[in-house]
């Protein structure tokens, strides 16, 4: 099993953790921006697509890492499916506008005849404005951003047993690292909860 009896250099690990925190920072920023755009009546399509692509590309990037980094992967990665569904839901929201195909015939009745109303079933559609913020835990934003918290922070609901199960073979010399991993994992889970709207 990977990691059994294998000592990794601390510098390698630190490098990966530094990478993790800057990636996290950018992912956090992407998330904030997408949520802000969603709150606008008419989201900026160009920007939303660029940000969604950036987030997608980051999650794909992580998949391509070598087997040696599998442990880091399991810490860092939000599953590809989760990320895709998060991005899908964001893009579906952008299709809320009624789409007018260009008028191809004369007369007022023809112009209205070509309306097509989107059937997107985004998870935001049925919620009242206040409900949107209910399941967003902003405790992780308080230190990273100057944004005022949308809701009073709640304690993270994540069970702490789970992280340990993903790398049972971590040796005792990296007990400190496990502590760091746990915190980062719970932060990542927060991101995912928000993205998938659980």
């Amino acid at each position, binding site marked *: 099993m990977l990691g059994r009896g294998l000592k990794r250099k601390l510098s390698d690990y630190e490098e990966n953790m530094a990478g993790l925190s*800057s*990636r996290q*920072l*950018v992912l956090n*920023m992407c998330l904030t921006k997408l949520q802000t755009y969603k709150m606008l*009546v*008419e989201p900026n*399509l*160009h*920007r939303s*697509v*660029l*940000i*969604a*692509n*950036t987030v997608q*590309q*980051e999650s794909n990037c992580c998949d391509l890492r070598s087997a040696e980094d599998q442990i880091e992967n399991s810490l860092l990665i939000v599953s590809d499916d989760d990320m895709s569904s998060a*991005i*899908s*839901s964001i*893009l*579906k929201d*952008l*299709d809320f*506008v*009624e*789409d*007018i*195909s*260009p*008028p*191809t*015939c*004369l007369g007022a009745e023809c*112009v209205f005849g070509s309306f097509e109303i*989107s059937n*997107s079933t985004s998870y935001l559609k049925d919620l009242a404005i206040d409900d949107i913020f209910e399941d967003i835990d902003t405790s992780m934003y308080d230190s990273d951003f100057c944004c005022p918290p949308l809701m009073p922070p709640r304690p993270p609901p994540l069970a702490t047993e789970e992280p340990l199960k993903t790398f049972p073979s971590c040796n005792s010399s990296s007990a400190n690292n496990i502590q760091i991993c746990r915190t980062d994992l719970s932060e990542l889970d927060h991101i995912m909860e928000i993205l998938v709207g659980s």
Partner: protein
Amino acid sequence: MSQKQVGGPPGDNSTVDWCLYQLNGAAEFEVSEADIISTVEFNHTGELLATGDKGGRVVIFQREPESKNEPYNQGEYNVYSTFQSHEPEFDYLKSLEIEEKINKIKWLPQQNAAHSLLSTNDKTIKLWKITERDKRPEGYNLKDEEGKLKDLSTVTSLQVPVLKPMDLMVEVTPRRIFANGHTYHVNSISVNSDCETYMSADDLRINLWHLAITDRSFNIVDIKPANMEDLTEVITASEFHPHHCNLFVYSSSKGSLRLCDMRASALCDKHSKLYEEPEDPSNRSFFSEIISSVSDVKFSHSGRYMLTRDYLTVKVWDLNMETKPVETYQVHDYLRSKLCSLYENDCIFDKFECAWNGSDSVIMTGAYNNFFRMFDRNTKRDVTLEASRESSKPRAILKPRRVCVGGKRRKDDISVDSLDFTKKILHTAWHPTENIIAIAATNNLYIFQDKVNSEMH
């Protein structure tokens, strides 16, 4: 103007001395958001210069013609006409306000005494006709000078009304309104060389219109996917080829260009040529995708090349080479290490435009801190100039500016961290034949001329 050099001495434009010719606009502390200039465009002769602003207004400047009587006024652009092109609208169906900001103005080639231009906001394109009236008829038979009906008993003979000169009056009338063609935001309009049609592009679609027909348009490009969740690319700019009326190009948020031929099929979703440069793996970062988005595309006057602007570079593409640009120029590469903070403050999404000079030998684009850059394609020299009140005394030659990135710092250099990112030059225009440039800096319009050019008048 007996001797005009197109674009200055060939191959030596970097020695052009630019000086401020005139500055229009209120001082900075008096700026209201509505005054922010959002587009600048010379007409085909360079006699007229139009600007559009966030408040939906269009201001047209006209160049003073040569006159032996007033030699010092020659070449000055004076306000010719101001009119309200677009008003804010409210879309009741979608419950949102449509901004009146003028996104683009394009002049039609002049075909008679009148001038015409197209102006567009996010949704509606309008055709405006600008006419001059400098004579009026006098000597009507049935009406007197004030227009009141004459007492018929006083009319004893028939007279032919004559045209008498009057003070010049410029009249602007909306001739066509092209509405309801776009769901998404219109980013470009381009008049075809056939002078009968034009196209308008939004994020996902491009429509072809006939200038005389407002109730229908033809959709020629549609990149909207069946499921919006599959959307990964939007249209960012488009333009007709200057000579071939069947060719047009559109750029995308992924940094690619697609050249389309309207003769190939009615719906030009399949491009004739795809211009794309493979990404340099050593420059890869989180923001690679975002900074590759093309913000502007312009054909050269010759029609042989295309100029694109993305966040950090301008690129010249040869229509015959799809694999990579023939030239790449760094506009402000020192920002590469600052992309994270530029993403945070949204500056990374700023859309800079680019321009060719009349002879296609020099290209120009804007940057931050009210800087703008020019690149000479022949000598490979480049220059950074500033459009600001402090650094531009009328008729004084503009001093080149330099941004220092640490290391040796010269006097008057400005460091990267001191750049003002709120002062961005997004819109610039170059006179079609002469070395005259119009630079929009927030609410101010700067017109710079080649010193030699201006002294010739």
